């Protein structure tokens, strides 16, 4: 902790200097080098951070305002509104976060800033999933779908094209990630589920659900179809037109036969489907499975032999900051560094998401919490979420084990396919069928 604080302080004093220089350069009339310049000037800065419910919430905003001395204004938006906002009014946003399914939208747009690696101080402590494109042990991971390394680096400072080889410019700072798999109601399934192929097993007809969409639901369906021996793909995360046609035709057939109970659009629906028993096997997000369990309903979230579906959330700064007020830009960088430095990461780690800097979290989480969430150890005491609710009793072990047991076998990543246009068109046919 103390080491962390001193780091923060030195960072702060560095920022003071930088800001003062900037102030002089802008000729804003402030006496050059005035030591409290940073603290005084930044007081009036308000940074707008838009993001999902996972990354924007009042508790974190309050802490950030306390720690940083300038104001963070957070706005929770649904993904569609968020991306539309970035596209049509980028200047009304300073910091935004989004996942792999949106990364395809930012190429050649000039909306996002190229973040210099040197300005993010935890890059050398970040898991290699992002920095190198490998697992912790150095083995490369599946490149099917929008794997993190595909959109981690800008090719150059112009922030137009991505580079899969490391450069000095980050597209975004990885905040959280996880691996999703099928959720199961063990009390209601007719037999044990070990493969994605079971999703299309007739034993489950009328009792399964998929995410409604081409970026998560379709890859899940493809993994399941392949596992069931109904399809083969070159790259499930980036299908060809023929593969799309065959996949959709198969899904239409299954839909007509009444195989699907529902398709969910948001987290809450997936929880409701599972908790209410409408569905006994479905693709869902990890915290959704936890949520079902906290309601006293059995829900397993098991690793399957074809691997899991990985996802991540990046936090990006907007390009307009580079050409605007230098002080504001400095505050944004300070804030983005803060986001991974502790409080925020611990907050979401205790809800089941992984931080991109697990070592930093280890230093700041209780041994029991870190052991349960990251190391796959049995809980030595009750696991309490940040709101004080008991999530698991003492002795419980996290589904799927440790961080690298869970993240170490990603079969496919959430995606946005090159043939998105065609896929959406065919998905419409599927929905109409």
């Amino acid at each position, binding site marked *: 902790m103390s080491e962390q604080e001193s780091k923060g302080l030195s960072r702060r004093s560095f920022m003071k200097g930088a800001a003062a220089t900037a102030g002089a350069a802008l000729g804003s009339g402030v006496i050059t080098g005035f030591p409290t310049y940073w603290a005084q000037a930044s007081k009036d800065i308000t940074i707008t951070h838009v993001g999902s419910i996972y990354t924007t919430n009042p508790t974190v905003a309050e802490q950030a305002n306390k720690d940083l001395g300038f104001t963070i204004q957070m706005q929770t938006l649904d*993904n*569609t509104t968020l*991306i*539309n906002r970035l*596209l049509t009014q980028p200047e009304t946003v300073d910091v935004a976060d989004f996942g792999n399914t949106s990364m*395809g*939208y930012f*190429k050649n*747009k000039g909306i996002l800033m190229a973040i210099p690696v040197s300005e993010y101080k935890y890059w050398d402590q970040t898991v290699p999933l992002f920095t190198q494109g490998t697992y912790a042990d150095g083995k490369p991971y599946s490149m099917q779908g929008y794997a993190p390394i595909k959109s981690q680096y800008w090719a150059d400072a112009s922030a137009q094209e991505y580079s899969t080889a490391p450069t000095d410019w980050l597209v975004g700072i990885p905040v959280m990630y996880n691996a999703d798999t099928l959720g199961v109601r063990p009390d209601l399934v007719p037999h044990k589920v070990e493969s994605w192929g079971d999703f299309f097993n007739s034993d489950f007809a*009328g009792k399964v*659900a998929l995410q*409604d*969409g*081409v970026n998560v639901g379709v890859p899940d369906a493809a993994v399941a179809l392949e596992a069931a021996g109904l399809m083969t793909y070159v790259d499930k995360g980036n299908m060809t037109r023929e593969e799309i046609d065959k996949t959709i035709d198969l899904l239409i057939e299954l*839909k007509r036969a009444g195989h*699907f*109970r*529902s*398709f*969910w*659009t948001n987290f*809450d629906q997936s929880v*409701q489907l599972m908790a*209410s*028993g*409408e569905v006994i096997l479905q693709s869902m997000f990890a915290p959704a499975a936890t949520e079902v369990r906290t309601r006293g309903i059995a829900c397993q979230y098991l690793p399957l032999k074809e691997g899991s579906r990985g996802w991540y959330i990046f936090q990006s700064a907007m390009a307009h900051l580079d050409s605007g007020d230098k002080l504001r830009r400095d505050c944004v960088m300070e804030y983005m560094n803060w986001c991974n430095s502790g409080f925020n990461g611990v907050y979401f780690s205790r809800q089941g998401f992984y931080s991109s800097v697990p070592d930093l979290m280890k230093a700041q989480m209780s041994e029991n919490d870190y052991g349960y969430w990251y190391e796959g150890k049995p809980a030595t005491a009750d696991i309490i979420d940040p709101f004080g609710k008991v999530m698991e009793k003492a002795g419980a072990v996290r589904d799927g084990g440790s961080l690298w047991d869970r993240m170490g076998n990603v079969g496919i990543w959430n995606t*946005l396919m090159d043939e*998105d*246009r065609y896929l*959406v*068109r065919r*998905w*419409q*046919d599927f*929905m*109409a*069928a």
Partner: protein
Amino acid sequence: MSSMTMSPRIASWLQATPFTLIMTCLVMVPLAIILAVSFMDYGFAEIIPEFYLGNWTDLFRSSLTVDTYATVFRQLAMVWSITLVLGFTISYYLVFHVRSNMWRAIFLAACAIPFWTSGPIRMISWVPLLGREGLVNQALFGMGLIDQPISWLLYSEFSVILVYVNMLTMAMAGPIANSMAKISPSIIQAARDQGASEWQVIQEVIIPLIKPGIVVGTIFIITAVMGDGFLVRAMSGNQMNTPAVAIMNEINAFQFPPAAAKSVVLLVIVLGMVGLLLRFVDIRKELAR
């Protein structure tokens, strides 16, 4: 003041100015943009400003258009006929059978209150009611009427229609009740004096006189059902596609040009339906009456 006279035409124009300004700047201009965009090509979350007819050719050639409109017209027909009968019955009861003004106001308020809870919350609340383990199934089970939960209560066309009827009956009943309230009691009394039964009064006197109300109600129903995507998606478990849902899907994928083309078609069709209705009953002439 009284000496100040104004030509009625200019008075009307002045009165309509704020409204027209808002509609022009905030509806017609965006609409013109939509029309222009429908003739453009698109990439990943970007509109490519080049003339492109593909959005339109796909629309007129694909079976998707036929399928989605077949679905929405089927739903519209069901929702319209149910809300018409139900809405008529309710307004007839409120206007002609409830005698106390206070009770009428209380009943009307009671009908309106559920609509002041946010849409997302109202939509979630159907699951605990209609789901496999929901209240309805539990009640039926408890009464011994079923031995297996009924699954078509939720995520089916049934649930879509049911929720539409729940949300839109008052939209039909309101205008009808208004038209009914206009009917002078002496007309009805006269019919009764001539020995007409209650049913004959309804058929011969009331129905012809409430046509404007029915038309306004029908306009509400048409625009609500044709324009809604949210309810269909939520209540069908995303298993149904209507023109509005198709538009929503494309907007969610940031594919604006095809969504724009679909919107223009939807708009033309709905405007056509409304225009046709207004040919039979001119509600503005009703006004001048």
